[in-house]
């Protein structure tokens, strides 16, 4: 069955939607970051599974091996993972600063504090 042949895409889509849902629905800033991470990871999976060639091995030039997986997507995704880590760490750092100044990491409470500040006209 065709759709099962492409099961890697189904996994990617499931992960992507799960992460995206968490990102949007969650009120807790840390959970949002986790959602973002899952979302990004799904894309990493997409790239990695793209490079897989059926029956291929790791791309090491050795005797007797003539089919191997495409290494380029893997290399690319290494870079993307680094970018993802930087994003996560920056987001976490921001959350720490937010916690320090608002004393909460719940989005609704932060918005409420902000709207109070707005009314006071600061």
């Amino acid at each position, binding site marked *: 069955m065709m759709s099962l042949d492409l099961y890697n895409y189904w996994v990617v889509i499931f992960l992507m939607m799960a992460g995206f849902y968490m*990102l949007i629905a969650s009120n807790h800033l840390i959970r949002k970051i986790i959602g973002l991470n899952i979302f990004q990871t799904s894309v990493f999976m997409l*790239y990695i599974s*793209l490079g897989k060639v059926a029956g291929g091995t790791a791309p090491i030039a050795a005797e007797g091996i003539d089919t191997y997986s495409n290494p380029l997507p893997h290399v690319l995704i290494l870079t993307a993972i680094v*970018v993802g880590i*930087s*994003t996560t760490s*920056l987001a976490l750092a*921001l*959350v720490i600063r937010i916690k320090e100044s*608002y004393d909460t990491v719940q989005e609704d409470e932060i918005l409420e504090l902000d709207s109070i500040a707005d009314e006071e006209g600061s």
Partner: protein
Amino acid sequence: MINEHLPALQVVVPLLAAPICFLIPNKRLSWLFATLVSWLSFAMAILLVIAVNDGTILHYEFGGWAPPWGIEYKVDIFNSYVLLIVTAIGAAVFPYSWKSIQKEIPETHHRIYFTAMLLCLAGLLGMTITGDAFNLFVLLEISSLSSYTLISLGRDRRALTASFQYLIMGTIGATFILIGVGLLYALTGTLNMADLASRIPALEGSRTLEAAFAFLILGFGLKLAMFPLHLWLPNAYSYAPSSVSAFIGATATKVAIYALLRFLYTVFGSSFSFDYMQVHWLLMPLAIASFMFASIVAIFQDGIKRLLAYSSVAQIGYILLGISLVNVTGLTAALLHMFNHALMKGGLFLALGAIAYRIGSTRVQSIAGIGQAMPYTMAAFVIGSLSLIGVPLTVGFISKWYLILATLEKGYWPLTVLIIISSLLAVVYTWRVIETAYFQERPAGAPAVKEAPLSLLIPTWVVILANLYFGINSSLSTDLASHAALLLFGGSLL
């Protein structure tokens, strides 16, 4: 010899300068160093513009790896023009920063500020110059991450939440772009833009290609704050330090628009983007909604920064409208407005930063009566506003003129009417600020205000005078823009 390496140096110099800047222990030295680097970048951009102005295209292969395997940097009239915009604004903002951040950013963070600014500059320049789709994503993230940092440096704690919000939205956008690039790679097995462009026509009709197209449009739409994906922008611009608002407001969205155009025209090709996908029928209503809605919202803002931020959303709407008209005049108008809007918004934010430096606030009410106390700053603000409205003799007029011509060429005169209505709205929202500054008295008991220091005034006025210069002698910018537009349409030059 050095000329040969210019395309690489344009990005590598600010990129390497960033960590060096962080290692310089003395604050003033790190500022001087960063300023020097920004001027150097500007000089390089000018050299590149001169080098490609006759229609040559410069290629640079990193590490000698020939494309499509290696990363290729490619400079033509179109992106050299964008490089010029970004570096010119950088060259004005860096010297301005020294005074401006004294009061807005804690001293311990000054070095971080300059480091992040250099990284942001490098990222934006790299996005513009690269000929490799994946490299574009990486550089986009470099510029985005550094701009999240810069925004979070704002004095108000809301800067933190604004930065976080921008981070979430920006990362979603960047990830969409990554998906789009990945799908393109899955289809074609290449990441080089020129290579992609040669393979895509054969794939027309493929569902995957359409999905890639949609992801990329959405991703760039988020980054360039296309209505209704603009929600991150007003907060980010309002709570960022003034110099950051000036730099990012003038450049970041422009580069995102550049990238969008690069994909629409060069990678996918205009026949796929417009004839097959009909993307202009998506862009046009969104563009109209952008400039009408954002102009109206701008009228009701209390904070001047937020007002200017909404005005930016509106101006992006004009640029998108020019793109969605799909004719040479419209594209010329869009490109011109990228340049002109950078000048006007840069000038306005710089003037506003000088006001913030003296009175510590940028609310409309708090600037009552400063017209007499800060004559040069407010005069700069007035000229910037006139430019925003599109009064003749300013750059705003030139881009609106081309935009209106483009709508008339297409016969879409109701659009002409809408453009004029939104210009009137711009009169209303800028007039509120000007009237408050000039025709209301300073409230009793308010501390006396002095004119801003020269180190803020000079960069502001350089940008403002550029507004007038390119509004009166427009041949330089219009020639560049129309050549770039012709190039994108695949026409022959000159």
